[in-house]
């Protein structure tokens, strides 16, 4: 089953603690001005999906939302 994860963030909630950039550096970074989250990859590849989910759970400000959609297509 192929799952697409879509990452959205609420930058107003973000407190710049950096748990996301620490946990899933391929998916999240922080800007240099206010340290707020920057999403590098809104639809992370399967290899980075677990880390992205984990980061969302760790975020101290609950600023990260991960939505999963099943994108399995029927084989032709």
């Amino acid at each position, binding site marked *: 089953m192929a799952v697409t994860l879509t990452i959205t963030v609420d930058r107003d909630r973000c*407190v*710049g603690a*950096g748990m996301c950039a620490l946990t899933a550096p391929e998916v999240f970074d*922080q800007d*240099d001005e206010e*340290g707020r989250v920057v999403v590098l990859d809104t639809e992370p590849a399967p290899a980075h999906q677990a880390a992205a989910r*984990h980061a969302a759970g*760790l975020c*101290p*400000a609950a600023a990260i939302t991960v939505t999963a959609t099943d994108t399995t297509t029927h084989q032709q």
Partner: protein
Amino acid sequence: MHDDPSANPAVPAPDLAQHSEPVTLPTDRRKGCPFDPPAELTQYRDEQPLRRLRFPDGHIGWLATGHSVCRAIMADARFSSRKELMHDPHMDIGDMEMPPAAPGEFLHMDEPQHGRYRKLLAGKFTVRRMRLLTERVEQVTADHLDAMEKAGTAVDLVSAFAKPIPAIMICELLGVPYQDRNSFQEQAATIFNSDNLDDKMAAYTAIQAYLTQLVAAKRTEPTDDILSDLTESDLTDEELIGVGFLVLAAGLDTTANMLGLGTFALLSNPDQLAALRSDPSLAGQAVEELLRYLTIADPMLRVALEDIEIDGRLIKAGEVIVVSLQAANRDPAKYPEPDRLDLHRKAIGHLAFGHGAHQCLGQQLARVEMSVAFPALLTRFPTLRLAVPPEEVPLRANPGIYGVQSLPVTWDKE
């Protein structure tokens, strides 16, 4: 997590029907167990992760000890950090009123005031920026290891290693001349630890005077550091002084205690020490586990701004909650065998840096410092050991940040 006792049979289900009497905050650790929370504290957690607490001034508030309830409280903005609303869990301050946060002292502020300061600083302490400091931390660490080697075969690890490394880093980042740090550190220690109110006031005045002059210097002659950068923001001199004080004090007195107490913990757990020494790539994970296991910053205080139902209990507006991060980080519902130091475990998700809007601003700096310093120390001195029996290591009594006052160590000359 607490409502699934079957996950861990060692944890009795909290008996909510039983309305237990308020307890007082346990603070004494058992003799011979310098790394473990007070036994009554963990017992309270296992009975009832959220329970009534009697404060020394008579206030009846709450004690939170379970991981999930502590995390929920810290994440919830209806629980305030405002100092003037608190009751002291350690002593009765009588008719003296807790003053509100000084300008810039955002640790004790709520939104929106807190966020205004925090966002000016958070960009300076990002994961990426702190990683860029790795080489500098390595160099500072190597300098101190060299000096230890030259000194002979025994030192107090706190003054030779644990204190100076984070002190140099925070002074360089903020732009505080390093030679000024000793007097600053001494005065900060007086403010936080002394029982003498006059001494406290004198130290506070001296620090204010020092920072006033430093901020004035940064305004006229900006250098490449955080304090100079902040002079370009809309912060007043008074606010800059408050911010400088908070960040400097936090930077001087936290990682230093982790390095001192952490080394003591490693030396007391030879199998874990050997694991880290043989595999320095374990450092990142080891640091998280040491943070969890030691949880040096404890407890946190919060006050309910409105009536809030949490964990099946009703916390009334104005009631103060003592959030015990150290009890939470040893919660068997979150970590199997919580009282074991296990560098291979996944400790992430611990609350040692707090949680929510106030989660530690300097955590990425602390992580870099510790993941460099611990392995470098162990690799340089393969025979490092305590120079005194473990029960003679002097522990800090300071409620707030735990650690060792000194750590006499020794090693064999190669």
